[in-house]
C-alpha cells in the first residue's frame, strides 16, 4: 500500500520528479536492510526520511549514491532510468551525498579533500587554484567559510560536515543527500545549515534529509517518508502530519516526546571540582580553571559548542587525561596526576562513564556484545575470578541487560559492530547505569539515536537521578540539556560561562553564553 500512496503523492502535486526509486531491495548477508522500497522525490523540494536505527535509511541512500549495489530495483533520475553502478555515475547524474560517517581524508587539507576525485588535469596546482576561488565563492553565497588550507584532523566535526557539503556543491550536485547532518551540530550550526538548505532549494536544487529529529522534519521538509525495519511505511506531506503521528509511524507505538520528571530533591554534594586545568598532548590548555559541584539526586547539564573543553572534562574525570586542580568525590580527593588516575580506579571509586564516542571508546567493535558488557569492569569479581574471566556470568548478565534495555537483536553473541547506532548506545548505557554508580558521566547520550531509544535512555538517566545519584550530562543538544538538567552550566573556551536553572533560562540566553557572550543580567 505504501507504493500506492507514494505514487499518488507523485501525481497529485504534479511537480517533475528529481528522483524515483522502484522496488529497491538490499541485504547484507542475513540482514535484509531494504525490502522492495519505492519512493519519489519531487524537484526543488526538501524530502525528509525518518526511521529507527537500523531501519535502512543510510543503506537506501548509499544505493542511490552508488556506494552499495542494490540486489534488485530501478533508479530514475529526472525521469530517466539511470544505472548507478558506482559513485562516479551518481556524481555524473548530479547526485551528491554527505554520509552519516564522514568520508574525509583526515590528514589532507580542506582544499585537497574538496578536489579529490574532481581534479582538472594531471597536476594539482591548477585544480587547487580553481577550487580555492570557487570555495571562496561558495563561502560567500552560503556563508560557509572554512579555511581551505586547514588540515581536516584539526577541524571540529561541525566543520567536517561543512567540508562534506562543499564537496558536494563543488561537484555541482543538484540533488543533495544528507544523512543525519545535525547529529553533530549545535543548534545554531543546525539553524545555519537549514538556512543554507532552504537557499539551495529555492535555487531549484532537491534535498533529501535523513534525521532522527522530528522538529527538524517539521521545520524544513516539504514531504517526509517513514522507514521501518527495512520497509517504507509511509510518505506524507509534512504540513498534513504531526510529530506524534510520525513518531508512531516510525516506532509502531505511541512515543512520549518530552521527558516527564518530578522536581529534583538534591542531597549531599557528591562531586566537587575546583579550578581544574587540563593540557592536551600539544600542551595547549583545554580546561582553564573549571569549578563546579554536583549533588546527589541531581543532573548537572553542561551545554556548549563541541570542542570547548567538555570532552577534556569527561576525560579527566573518567581517568584518562591528567590535570591539576582539586576534584573530590564524596569528600575524598581523587588523583589527577596520572599515577592513580585511570579508568579502573575511577570506576572503583564509584564513577561510571558513558563516553561521547561509543564506537571509538565505549565499545570494542569487534568484541561480542557479552564481552562488551564487562568492558572496563572486567576486574569485577562478578565477571572474573583469580586471573580468569567468568564468561558464563558475563553472557548471562548480557542477556538480562539486553532484555531490560530492549536491545535489538537480543543476541549476546553478535559483534558490537553489527548492532545499529541506537542499540550500541543502549549496550553502553546499560553497562554503566546498571553499576549503580555514585556519579555518572554521560556524554552525547543520544547522538545518532532514534527517538524510541532516546525516550528510553532519557528515562534511565532520570531514574538514576531519582535513585539519588549524581549525573554529569554533556550534550550539544540544547533541548536535551533543557529537558534533563536540574542545573545547566555553559562551557566556552575551557571555562564555565555561567550556571542557569532550566526554569529561568531559554535557548537564546544559553546560545549567547555558548557563544561566549556574557551579559550583565544574572
Amino acid at each position: 500500500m505504501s507504493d500506492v500512496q507514494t505514487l499518488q503523492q507523485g501525481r497529485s502535486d504534479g511537480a517533475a520528479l528529481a528522483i524515483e526509486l522502484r522496488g529497491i531491495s538490499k541485504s547484507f548477508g542475513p540482514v535484509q536492510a531494504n525490502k522492495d522500497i519505492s519512493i519519489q522525490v519531487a524537484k526543488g523540494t526538501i524530502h525528509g526520511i525518518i526511521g529507527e536505527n537500523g531501519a535502512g535509511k543510510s543503506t537506501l541512500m548509499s544505493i542511490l549514491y552508488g556506494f552499495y549495489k542494490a540486489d534488485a530495483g530501478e533508479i530514475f533520475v529526472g525521469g530517466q532510468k539511470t544505472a548507478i553502478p558506482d559513485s562516479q555515475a551518481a556524481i555524473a547524474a548530479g547526485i551528491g551525498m554527505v554520509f552519516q560517517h564522514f568520508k574525509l581524508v583526515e590528514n589532507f587539507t580542506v582544499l585537497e579533500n574538496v578536489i579529490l576525485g574532481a581534479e582538472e588535469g594531471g597536476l594539482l596546482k591548477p585544480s587547487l587554484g580553481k577550487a580555492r576561488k570557487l570555495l571562496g565563492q561558495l563561502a560567500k553565497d552560503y556563508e560557509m567559510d572554512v579555511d581551505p588550507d586547514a588540515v581536516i584532523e584539526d577541524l571540529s566535526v561541525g566543520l567536517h560536515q561543512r567540508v562534506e557539503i562543499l564537496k558536494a556543491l563543488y561537484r555541482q550536485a543538484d540533488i543533495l543527500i544528507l544523512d543525519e547532518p545535525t547529529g553533530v551540530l549545535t543548534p545554531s550550526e543546525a539553524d545555519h545549515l537549514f538556512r543554507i538548505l532552504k537557499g539551495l532549494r529555492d535555487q531549484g536544487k532537491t534535498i533529501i534529509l535523513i534525521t532522527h529529529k522530528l522538529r527538524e522534519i517539521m521545520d524544513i521538509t516539504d514531504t517526509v517518508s517513514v522507514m521501518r525495519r527495512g520497509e517504507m511505511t509511509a510518505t506524507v506531506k509534512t504540513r498534513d502530519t504531526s510529530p506524534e503521528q510520525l513518531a508512531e509511524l516510525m516506532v509502531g507505538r505511541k512515543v512520549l516526546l518530552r521527558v516527564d520528571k518530578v522536581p529534583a530533591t538534591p542531597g549531599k554534594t557528591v562531586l566537587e571540582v575546583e579550578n581544574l586545568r587540563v593540557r592536551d598532548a600539544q600542551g595547549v590548555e583545554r580546561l582553564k580553571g573549571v569549578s563546579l559541584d554536583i549533588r546527589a539526586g541531581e543532573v548537572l547539564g553542561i551545554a556548549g559548542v563541541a570542542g570547548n573543553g567538555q570532552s577534556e572534562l569527561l576525560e579527566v574525570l573518567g581517568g584518562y587525561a591528567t590535570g591539576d586542580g582539586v576534584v573530590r568525590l564524596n569528600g575524598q580527593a581523587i588523583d589527577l596526576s596520572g599515577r592513580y588516575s585511570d579508568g579502573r580506579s575511577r570506576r572503583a571509586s564509584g564513577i561510571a562513564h558513558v563516553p561521547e564516542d561509543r564506537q571509538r571508546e565505549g565499545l570494542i567493535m569487534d568484541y561480542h556484545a557479552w564481552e562488551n558488557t564487562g568492558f572496563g569492569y572486567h576486574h569485577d569479581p562478578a565477571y572474573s575470578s583469580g586471573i580468569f574471566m567468568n564468561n558464563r556470568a558475563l553472557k548471562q548478565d548480557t542477556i538480562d541487560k539486553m532484555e531490560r534495555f530492549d536491545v535489538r537483536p537480543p543476541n549476546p553473541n553478535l559483534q558490537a559492530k553489527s548492532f545499529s547506532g541506537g542499540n550500541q548506545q543502549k549496550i553502553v548505557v546499560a553497562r554503566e547505569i546498571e553499576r549503580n554508580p555514585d556519579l555518572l558521566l554521560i556524554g552525547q547520550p543520544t547522538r545518532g539515536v532514534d527517538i524510541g531509544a532516546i525516550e528510553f535512555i532519557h528515562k534511565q538517566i532520570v531514574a538514576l537521578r531519582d535513585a539519588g545519584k549524581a549525573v554529569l550530562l554533556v550534550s550539544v543538544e540544547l533541548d536535551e540539556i533543557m529537558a534533563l538538567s536540574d542545573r545547566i552550566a555553559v562551557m566556552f573556551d575551557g571555562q564555565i560561562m555561567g550556571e542557569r536553572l532550566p526554569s529561568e533560562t531559554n535557548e537564546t540566553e544559553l546560545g549567547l553564553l555558548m557563544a561566549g557572550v556574557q551579559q550583565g543580567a544574572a
Partner: protein
Amino acid sequence: MPKWVDILLIPLINLALALFVSGLVVAYIGENPFEAVAILVKGAVGSPYGWGYTLYYTTNFIFTGLAVAVAFHARLFNIGGEGQAGLGGLGVALVLLALPWPHWSIALLAAMVGAMAFGAFWAAIPAYLLAKRGSHIVITTIMFNFIASALLVYLLVNVIKVPGSMSPETARFGVSLPNANDVLPWVGFPRSTPLNVTFVVALLACVAVWVLIWRTRLGYEIRAYGHSEPAALYAGISPVRIIMVTMLISGGLSGLMAINAVMGEAERLVLDPVQGAGFVGIAVALMGRSHPVGVFLAALLFGMLYQGGAELEFERPAITREMIVVIQALVILFTGALDNMVRSPVERFFVNLNKRAA
C-alpha cells in the same frame, strides 16, 4: 555455511591447488609430480621414522608460531622470533653447562626458565622502546635479529667454544631429553628420532596460549588493546603494561623453541640454531589466524613439508631443497593469502543452497 566447510573443505581445496601448481613446477624440471607428492607424503607421515622428524619440526614451528600469534592479538608484529629463539638457545646452553644436572626433568625445567628468560629479555628491549619511545617494533625486532646473530657468533667463536675443536659450538650437554623412542618404545620410532618430550611442552603451550587469550583477564585486555587503543584507555587498560607483558610472553615462547632444537636435538649450541624457524613462525601464525589450534595445524603442515621435502630431495636428486622452498611458498600463498579466491565462491554456493532449501 556449515562449519566443516569453513575449517576443513576450504583449506583442503587450497592445499590441493598449492600442490597442483607445485606439480607443474616439478613437471617443468622433468620429474613426475605424482611420484613426487607420493614420496613427500609418505616420507612425512608414512612411517614412525617420518613422523619423528615431522613432529620434531612441528614442535619448533608451534613455539615460534605461538610467539607471533600472541603478539598479534595486541596488534604487535613481532618478527624478532629468529633472534629471540637464538637467545633462548644461549639461555639453554648456559643453564645446562652451568651444573651437572642429576635428572633430565629438573634440567628441562631449569632450561625452560633459561630459554624463556633470555628470549623474553631479547623481546623486552624492543617492547620497551615501543612503549616508551614509540619506536616501530618491526624495525627494532629486525635489527635485534641481526644483533642476536652477531652476539651468538662472537660468543661461540671466542668464548664458549670447546677449545681445540674447530667447530664453533659448545660442548655437548650432560643431559639429554627422552625422545619418542624412549617414551613409546612399542611405536617403532628409530632410536635416534629427534622427536622428544618437548613436543608435549609445545602442546601444553598451545593450550596455555588458548587459555591466556580467551579465558584470562590478561588475554581479554590484550585483545581489547589490540582492537582499539582509545577504548583500552577508557577502560583503564595501560598500553605500556600490555605492550611489555605481551612481548615478554611472545619472546618467552620464541625462546622455548630452543628447548626442542638445542636441548632436545643438537644437545649443544651451534651456530644459527634457529634455522629460519623464526620466519616460518610468522607464516604459521598468519595461516593459523593467530589461533592456537590453527597454529598447531599450520605448524604440522610445515613440519610435513620440511620432512617430506627432505625425503623427496633424498630420493630424487633432481629435486633440490629450493624446490621444497617453492612448494612451501605456494602452500603459504594458497592457504594463506589467496584464501578468499576459494572461500567466496564456496560460500556463495552454500548460501544459494540454503536459499533453495528454505
